[in-house]
């Protein structure tokens, strides 16, 4: 597997606070996506970005309807092109070790398609259509979105703020187990 010390300095290892084992696995997965672009030696923090197409084709992500949003949320440039730091960030938030609040925060950003810090009706419609692959009729979609706003919109402004979303999602029994990717 190679000596970890040659890839990163000891301090960099300390910084990430995941177990070393998981850390090397993540690095090698990142590198496997494009071996010619990613160097083996990261001690000088090279500036390498992998395009979204490579990230979206990973087996863990390729069947996920939200993969584009996930990549956009975690990437620095907001387009889905990820550096190693972004990559590590993404998998550490989606791992089972991440705290609930952190996951809720990032889930909110993922489902906020237009990036306006609120989940509005159009965001809800897009989410639902991605989930059902457009199989529901317009009437049904409209009804579901109204029900969701009914249930979760506490300040009654017609859209979900981060607080509304967190209040709702932290009570969900299945949130932690579904919002989880293992690598």
């Amino acid at each position, binding site marked *: 597997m190679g000596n970890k010390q040659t890839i990163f300095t000891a301090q960099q290892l300390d910084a990430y606070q995941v*177990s070393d084992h998981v850390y090397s696995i993540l690095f090698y997965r990142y590198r496997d996506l494009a071996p010619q672009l990613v160097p083996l030696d990261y001690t000088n923090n090279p500036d390498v970005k992998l395009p979204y197409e490579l990230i979206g084709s990973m087996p863990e992500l390729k069947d996920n*309807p939200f993969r584009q949003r996930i990549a956009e949320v975690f990437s620095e440039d907001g387009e889905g092109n990820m550096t190693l730091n972004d990559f590590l960030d993404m998998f550490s938030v989606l791992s089972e070790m991440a705290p609930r609040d952190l996951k809720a925060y990032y889930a909110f950003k993922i489902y906020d398609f237009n990036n306006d810090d609120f989940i509005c009706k159009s965001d809800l419609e897009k989410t639902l259509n991605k989930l059902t692959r457009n199989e529901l009729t317009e009437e049904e979609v409209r009804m579901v979105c109204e029900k969701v706003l009914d249930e979760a919109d506490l300040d009654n402004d017609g859209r979900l703020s981060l607080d509304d979303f967190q209040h709702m999602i932290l009570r969900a029994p299945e949130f932690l187990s579904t919002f989880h990717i293992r690598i």
Partner: protein
Amino acid sequence: EELEKLKEAVEDRKKLIQGLRGKPWPMKQKLVTLRESQEFVEKYEGALGKGKGRKFYAYKVMMTKKWMKFQRDFENFKTACIPWEMKIKEIEHFGSSVASYFLFLRWMYGINMILFGLTFGLVMVPEALMGRPYGSIPRKTVPRAEEGSAMDFAVLWDFGGYAQYSVLFYGFYNNQRAIGWLKYRLPLSYFLVGVGTVAYSYMVVIRRMARNANEGGVGDDNSFNFSWKMFTSWDYLIGNPETADNKFASITTSFKEAILEEQESRKDDNIHLTRFLRVLANFLVLCCLAGSGYLIYFVVRRSQKFTLDGLENHSWWERNEVNMVMSLLGMFCPMLFDVISALENYHPRVALQWQLGRIFALFLGNLYTFIIALMDEINVKSQREEEKIVKYNITMWEGSLYNGTLSENNTAAPITVHPADVPRGPCWETMVGQEFVRLIISDTMTTYITLLIGDFLRAVLVRFLNYCWCWDLEAGFPSYSEFDVSGNVLGLIFNQGMIMGAFYAPCLPALNVLRLHVSMYLQCWAVMCCNVPQERVFKASGSNNFYMAMLLVILFLSTLPAIYTIVSIPPSFDCGPF
């Protein structure tokens, strides 16, 4: 003052470093903050040490650093040690519900390993090493009458013959208070290990339940129904297209159902018909349960009559009737319940809970009828009379031996009688132990055979006959089988309940460990090779307190008979450590 402020600042930075993981900052920002904080802490920590206790402070800091490094290494080591981690990761691509079953299996395996360690190390090994060896005293030897057939495979498979007179069963153990050069108190240890296994099982289950209760949110809350459906129904673990397709389909169906329910909750028609049908369905289910209970009781009594006649006079079916009947009931009754529940017209999730509850009642009823029938056999009165008869026989027999040497009054030469010739008393504990062991073995065999036939053979047939069959086998009737998570979890739970009969057969935990080990590999293979992902995905896992509660109930209910027998029925005089 200034030193205090500096100390506080260092503590704050340290807290920041610890909490950095939970902050939703991008990685770059975290790295920068981390580097700054670490430099700050290093620079000033040294300075803080000036004045009193500097050396001690520096020492404390160094020890904390070393301790943290040790903890990290230990964590790494622990994660590398977890068995079957890779296998479960592969299964997780099928979705979290199937993987949850295997996680549960692994947890049970851990518990059983510990139980096995206890019984093996503290009871079986001391007796085998330090107790009187085989053949030295009557209770440890095969009686002369049975000696001829003691090595036969058929007898051994039934756990008679040499297997019966070995450390595997209760009857072998001597009632000597302390054995060997260690003065090991075997009877005490036997009893304590029995109590210990029960206590340990309870403790583990309750601890798990407490942990789940802390983590989980409210289970049955319906106030966020649609929101949760929208935001938590996609399983991010899914990594294969087939499962993804199924998941999309099931999400769509689930939404459509919820919408329908929402619309229909405005109108409730014909509630009387529904109520009547539900009462009728429950009545039918009760009839089934009563019928199966009676059948088992009848079969157990019949098998006791057969043993009295001597086993050789009966066919294989008649010898194994009890186990076969119980396994078959366990297979067919749930299907019957499924059909009956079509009358009830419940929401699928509610229907599943009813189904699970009924299967639970079925297994429980079967287990209890089995135990009660056994109890009837150990009927105290007949036991006492038999013991009296045997004791009388023994005194007569001894008298006849001494008669020849009565002429020499004082020097009574020790009479060497081969232990196999001594008349033996009845030993109901070993019999009970044997019944449990046979039950577990036949249950295991049935499970594996159903797996092979129901899943593997079916998949092979569907795949190859599809080319030359009139209708589409894959989409239509047989098709591939799904992995029934809840059924399998229930099976595991009941298996564990049966192990509680281990007081009379110390070999049960060992058997169970073996069984779970094989199950893991066999079921993993079956899931990956022959099963398709479930269409309706309902979660069933250890994190759900429903299954933990069932496990607790089973543990409690299966220790009841053991306790009852220990308390009320006197132990055999010729058998075992008491």
